[in-house]
């Protein structure tokens, strides 16, 4: 990170404020003049896109909460009231429901970016871990939010997933009763889900602050995976990346608006337009699309408890990434073997998503099992092995310097001197 630049307050007011609460300094150092690698591509714009998604969900959510009623006899009707009677209610509701999908789409791309460029590696482990925390919070928030309309899928999805808690030995049943506030998903459940759904996004916001803070301590990674050496490698965040982020966000918005205005229900399930009926189970219970991969993993295993453990395990394993993949070369750009396995990983993730909506039988079940095995193998087997045996392809000396680095790659543990690409920038 480059500390050559220093913020200096220009006028009287700025000087006065700077001595008491350095807001302008903070804004300048973190948003305006923050030295950022000059070679970031569009995959790096998703952080900003995600922040906008969070803000959008919070604003539309707070507005919806002015009209929504979290009571089982009124919830469904209150949402129809929003759609039909509240001025622009349909717009705010569709923005919120499709916004959740956009939020997850963006977070998946953001995470895949991290996996590809090695953004989780030393010294950025904490950024990654905080990110996985955010991801977990998003899943919980989204799950609870989907229950609120009190449609058939809301109710039965909640029933299926909360019942998984009961599979925990010994404490499962009492914990489930505690969670539900009753003996099945009912009004107490709905009420507390509403409260927590309102709360968690602000917790997410706090973790996002930590996430960005941690990022600013180490500085951004970049597509080469080679750390920034000096100011020749960086440009100021503003105006280059503020404008580039905004451009990417507008592209994203156009896609978002397509869904809101021209196909607002395609990412949802028609059954959720039927009021919840505890006495009638829908033919196929499916979660929202962004939870389908996890649903597929859950149902890949015949044993209920194992399924639950693997489903949660698929996210828990992400926490350990920095210690599973320890190869010093960060970016997949220069890791020909890793690239192939990564591509396979993406394909299997998409496949898991597809399979999550299919009944767990026959070819679908078989493919779910294969995909689940690959998912865990990628992290637990392939990454550690590659860390030890992979030879990188020829790498440049630095971000600004395209000359090829001829140094011998030091494959883990050696003390033959630190290769340039592993040097921490100061």
């Amino acid at each position: 990170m480059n500390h050559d630049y220093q913020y200096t307050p220009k006028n009287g007011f700025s000087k006065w404020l700077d001595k008491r609460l350095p807001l302008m300094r903070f804004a300048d150092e973190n948003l305006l003049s923050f030295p950022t690698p000059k070679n970031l591509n569009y995959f790096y714009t998703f952080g900003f896109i995600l922040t906008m998604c969070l803000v959008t969900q919070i604003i539309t959510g707070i507005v919806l909460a002015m009209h929504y009623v979290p009571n089982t006899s009124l919830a469904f009707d209150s949402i129809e009231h929003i759609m039909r009677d509240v001025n622009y209610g349909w717009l705010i509701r569709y923005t919120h429901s499709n916004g959740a999908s956009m939020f997850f789409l963006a977070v998946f791309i953001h995470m895949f970016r991290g996996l590809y460029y090695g953004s989780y590696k030393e010294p950025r482990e904490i950024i990654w871990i905080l990110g996985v925390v955010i991801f977990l919070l998003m899943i919980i928030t989204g799950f609870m939010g989907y229950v609120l309309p009190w449609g058939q899928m809301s109710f039965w999805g909640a029933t299926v997933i909360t019942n998984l808690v009961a599979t925990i030995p010994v404490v499962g049943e009492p914990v489930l009763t505690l969670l539900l506030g009753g003996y099945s998903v009912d009004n107490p459940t709905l009420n507390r889900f509403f409260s927590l759904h309102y709360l968690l996004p602000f917790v997410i916001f706090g973790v996002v602050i930590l996430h960005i803070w941690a990022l600013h301590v180490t500085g951004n990674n970049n597509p080469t995976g080679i750390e920034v050496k000096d100011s020749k490698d960086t440009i100021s965040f503003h105006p280059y990346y503020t404008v580039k982020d905004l451009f990417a966000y507008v592209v994203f918005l156009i896609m978002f608006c397509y869904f809101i205005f021209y196909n607002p229900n395609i990412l949802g399930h028609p059954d959720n337009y039927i009021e919840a009926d505890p006495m009638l189970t829908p033919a196929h219970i499916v979660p929202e699309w962004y939870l389908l991969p996890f649903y597929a993993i859950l149902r890949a295993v015949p044993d209920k408890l194992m399924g639950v453990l693997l489903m949660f395990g698929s996210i828990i394993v992400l926490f350990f990434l920095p210690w599973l993949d320890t190869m010093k070369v960060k970016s997949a750009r220069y890791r020909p073997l890793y690239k192939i396995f990564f591509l396979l990983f993406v394909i299997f993730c998409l496949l898991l998503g597809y399979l999550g909506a299919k009944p767990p039988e026959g070819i679908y079940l078989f493919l779910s099992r294969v995909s689940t095995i690959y998912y865990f193998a990628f992290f637990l087997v392939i990454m550690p092995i590659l860390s030890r045996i992979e030879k990188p392809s020829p790498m440049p000396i630095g971000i600004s310097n395209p000359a090829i680095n001829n140094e011998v790659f030091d494959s883990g543990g050696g003390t033959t001197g630190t290769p340039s690409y592993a040097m921490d920038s100061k």
Partner: protein
Amino acid sequence: MTDTNDNNDPSRRDFLYITTAVFGATGAASVAWPLIDQLNPSASVSALSSIEADISSIPEGGSLKVAWRGKPIFIRRRTKEEIEMAEKEDSVDLPHPEKDLDRVKNKEWLVVVGVCTHLGCIPIADSGDFGGWFCPCHGSHYDISGRIRKGPAPTNLEIPPYEFVNENIIKIG
């Protein structure tokens, strides 16, 4: 490899950025409108913003109380004596001078918002010293035209917007 023409021409460069910024600001501002308008009464609330009251069964000297926009409306069918008294008292020194004729569309019918103009309590009919209403909270007296005569209330009882749809129905609001 820089294009010297464009980079050395500040007006062209600035124009693009300024146009973009203005566009962006307009977009951001127009996002605000739906978020504000949703606070306004929804269609279901607006549908109840006017009500129709059937006055055909009110006897002379009798009254009807209906709810309009959350407030009580007194509809009073006045007797001949009451109308005479109301008109006679036009010339009395009133705290809030108003002619009775200016307060009614049809002399036989008085339509007022039944909320005391002092601090909002609901006055009691057929009580008080002036043949009209009396507010028990702080002692305001209203006459048979709904005018304040004695007490802390500053203005006469409010006349809501209303009209006679026909001789049996009044539409309020």
